């Protein structure tokens, strides 16, 4: 392979920006292992990005630094305690002589009770603290979910606007006439003026990994592929590619990714435009 043109393709930059897919990342990593010049280029680019960031940024305020380190304090302390606790267990035993003995015993008991209570409350505190952290995490998960729902809502809303404003024709595609799936049913919604096509899957069998359902608009120029059908989304609307002119719509089973021309033996449903 031509390493120089691989380097100059821009892929390494996107790798550093975190924009490659998992598969592409693997490719870059394994090529970097076998080609030192790719690794060198990656290192130089990273240096550049770091230098650019470091030179152009403002120093964050002391306030945020203090806040970060106070947040992290708990982790440091846990670590430092576990280091020191092992060395401090050697204590001297002092023999207790007579007149102070009862007081000494009472004081010891008080000390034991007090430290017992201290441990108990420290434990409680830790428990509450963990609960609080868990709640904070839950809250941020919920905020994320809300954002997602919000986005979905907007999409649905804009789709609804289209349907209210548009002039959609409903074409039922059925599998009755064919051998593949007698009970298959998929509806096409088509706005001829806006050239927009949606489909709603009513009933379609799941396909194995190697195949896809492909939708065809059949017009004067013969069948034109206008997108793959997602069977997972039953009864929700999927937007397909634009169509200006068609006498019928049909779905066939094609190898994964779709074909240029339909495999007519694997015609599943067909519906004519009334």
């Amino acid at each position, binding site marked *: 392979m031509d390493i120089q043109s691989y380097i100059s*393709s821009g892929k390494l930059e996107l790798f550093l*920006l975190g*924009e490659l897919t998992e598969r592409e990342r693997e490719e870059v990593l394994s090529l970097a292992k076998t080609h030192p010049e790719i690794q060198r280029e990656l290192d130089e680019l990273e240096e550049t990005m770091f230098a650019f960031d*470091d030179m152009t*940024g403002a120093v964050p305020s002391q306030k945020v630094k203090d806040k970060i380190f106070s947040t992290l304090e708990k982790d440091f302390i846990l670590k430092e305690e576990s280091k020191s606790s092992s060395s401090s267990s050697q204590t001297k035993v002092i023999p207790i002589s007579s007149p102070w003995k009862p007081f000494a015993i009472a004081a010891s008991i008080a000390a034991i009770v007090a430290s017992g209570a201290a441990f108990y409350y420290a434990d409680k505190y830790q428990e509450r603290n963990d609960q609080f952290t868990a709640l904070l995490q839950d809250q941020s998960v919920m905020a994320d979910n809300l954002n997602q729902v919000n986005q979905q809502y907007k999409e649905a809303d804009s789709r609804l606007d289209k349907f209210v404003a548009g002039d959609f024709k409903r074409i039922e595609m059925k599998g009755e006439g064919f051998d593949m799936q007698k009970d298959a049913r998929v509806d096409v919604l088509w706005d001829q003026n806006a050239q927009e096509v949606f489909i709603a899957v009513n009933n379609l069998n799941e396909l194995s990994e190697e195949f896809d359902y492909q939708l065809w608009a059949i017009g004067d120029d013969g069948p034109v592929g206008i997108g793959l059908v997602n069977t997972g989304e039953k009864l929700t609307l999927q937007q397909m590619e634009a169509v200006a002119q068609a006498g019928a719509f049909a779905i066939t089973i094609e190898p994964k990714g779709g074909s240029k021309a339909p495999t007519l033996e694997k015609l599943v449903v067909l519906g004519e435009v009334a």
Partner: protein
Amino acid sequence: MQEEQIIAGLRAKDRKTTEYLYDKYSRALYAVISRIVFDKDIAEEVFHDAFVKITKKIDRYDESKGRLYTWMANICRNSAIDKLRSKEISQSGKTNTIDDFVYGMESQSGTQEQIDGIGVKELMIELNDDQKFIVEYIYFKGYTHSEVSEEFDIPLGTVKSRVRAAIQVLKKNVARI
């Protein structure tokens, strides 16, 4: 400190290493965030969360999948973009006006005031318009390259080669200064 020492120290929750990490990288990482998130208070909040996240997630960082700075910068960049998009939604009504929350490099109140030290403009002076555009959208507005390609109808391959060319110019300028 070598990168391996830093990583080992962070994993051991060592205070000194964390301080070293902060001193060495805080400015660059904060730059990654603050050029996407305009508001200083929000940028510092994102930076706080991202830095804490880095120290917590260090156990899951895999050295064989890329260098430390890249990993940290991506955490910061993604946190900033998430923040930007969640803000955008809470402002509601308007859609995809990322521009509202980001300072354009050309604007009068722009980047130049936001920074001390070397000007962004000085570093970018030799970029041509196409490269400037790419850097603005990808670096300052948090777009992915495929978003730039779709939104401005530029072929993906062209976006990639412009990213490459722009960073090459920056590399030269960074080395010169």
